[in-house]
């Protein structure tokens, strides 16, 4: 349990930063793939989806970590899911109230935040074992990491797929849209591309380090 003790010793800012990069939920942990691929055909949708997920993540982390000594171990997963489902219902109605167009574009995927493994995963692995303050930081960090990843995908797919970013035209009107990028297949390819980039960077770093060690 050495790893767990380590996490509890860390300060709040560390909990925040680890979600951003080192343990990024999408690129490193490959969690919550369904919304990542389904709603990232424009940067705007990606941003909205990311923020909605972040809200649910932070709120459910708060509730679960403050109730962590009351929840019986046997029914914990069911309890987590009920808590998450409540916040998702709230989010669903709030988005419908703010912008009906956005609600239509995201469709059933707002409701599907309930089954996002990222949220349940953080509840089980972090919020059920740590204080409320740390859980908030963890939720925020993971949430921002998730938004960042969604934006990476959404931006690439929108730039190539419709030649714009956040609805602003980027190219000359003779630019041929890569229709493939907006279609489902484009989602798979873009995510694969980002993962390749990160793998390549990791490998290059590891190689540089081993070279340094050899030199020393």
């Amino acid at each position, binding site marked *: 349990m050495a790893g767990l003790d380590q996490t509890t010793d860390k300060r709040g800012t560390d909990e925040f930063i680890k979600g951003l990069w080192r343990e990024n939920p999408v690129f490193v942990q490959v969690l919550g793939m*369904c919304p990542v691929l389904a709603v990232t055909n424009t940067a705007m949708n990606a941003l909205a989806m990311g923020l909605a997920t972040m809200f649910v993540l932070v709120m459910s982390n708060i509730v679960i970590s403050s109730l962590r000594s009351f929840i019986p171990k046997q029914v914990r997963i069911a309890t987590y899911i009920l808590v998450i489902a409540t916040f998702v219902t709230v989010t669903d109605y709030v988005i419908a109230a703010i912008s009906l167009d956005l609600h239509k574009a995201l469709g059933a995927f707002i409701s599907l935040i309930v089954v996002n493994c990222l949220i349940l995963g953080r509840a089980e692995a972090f919020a059920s074992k740590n204080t409320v303050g740390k859980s908030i930081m963890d939720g925020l960090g993971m949430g921002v990491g998730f938004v960042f990843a969604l934006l990476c995908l959404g931006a690439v797919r929108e730039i190539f797929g419709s030649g714009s970013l956040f609805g602003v035209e980027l190219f000359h009107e003779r630019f041929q849209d890569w229709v493939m990028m907006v279609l489902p297949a484009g989602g798979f390819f873009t995510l694969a591309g980002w993962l390749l980039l990160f793998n390549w960077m990791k490998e290059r770093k590891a190689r540089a380090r081993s070279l340094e060690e050899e030199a020393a």
Partner: protein
Amino acid sequence: MTGDPLWSIFLNACLINNFVLAYFLGICPFLGVSGKMETATRMGGAVMFVMLVSSTCAYWINVLLLAIDAPYLKLISFIAVIASTVQLVEMFIKKVSPTLFRQLGIFLPLITTNCAILGLALFQTNKGYSFVQSIFYALGAGVGFTLALILMAGLREKLELAAVPDVVKGTALTLMLAGLLSIAFMGFAGLGG
């Protein structure tokens, strides 16, 4: 939408709008269990069964919720039904075939968080399908999910022997394969219209 013939609903859920490759539902088990043909087939079977049961339940729950005028409870009651169905299936498989139970391992309880199942329940209510239509929709989605899983497992078993650069190995390769499969499935778009 309500007047769709049954065969068109089935084909639509199974091929044209395949749950995995067009709607991106159930990607986690799709990436996780598609390593071996045998587990893929069994996982497909389990998911298909849970889909049928939960779609039936979801239909009646929706009728009930509309009757008492409480649609905001939809999500919570759907997920509760799915969780208990999965629990039931788990107990059943454990009793009937302990070997299969061990092979499926962690992925059996994870069906609860499989978006394909909740997605199915939500889509059928959004589309306003009747009871029989819902069942055909669930069947089509189940067959489509199993088909995608089996195709993927076949490809990945072949790729075990191929020489692939280290950087590409793992999730990135699987995602690229899924993208190619997704393009292939787009060819079905002309089928039912």
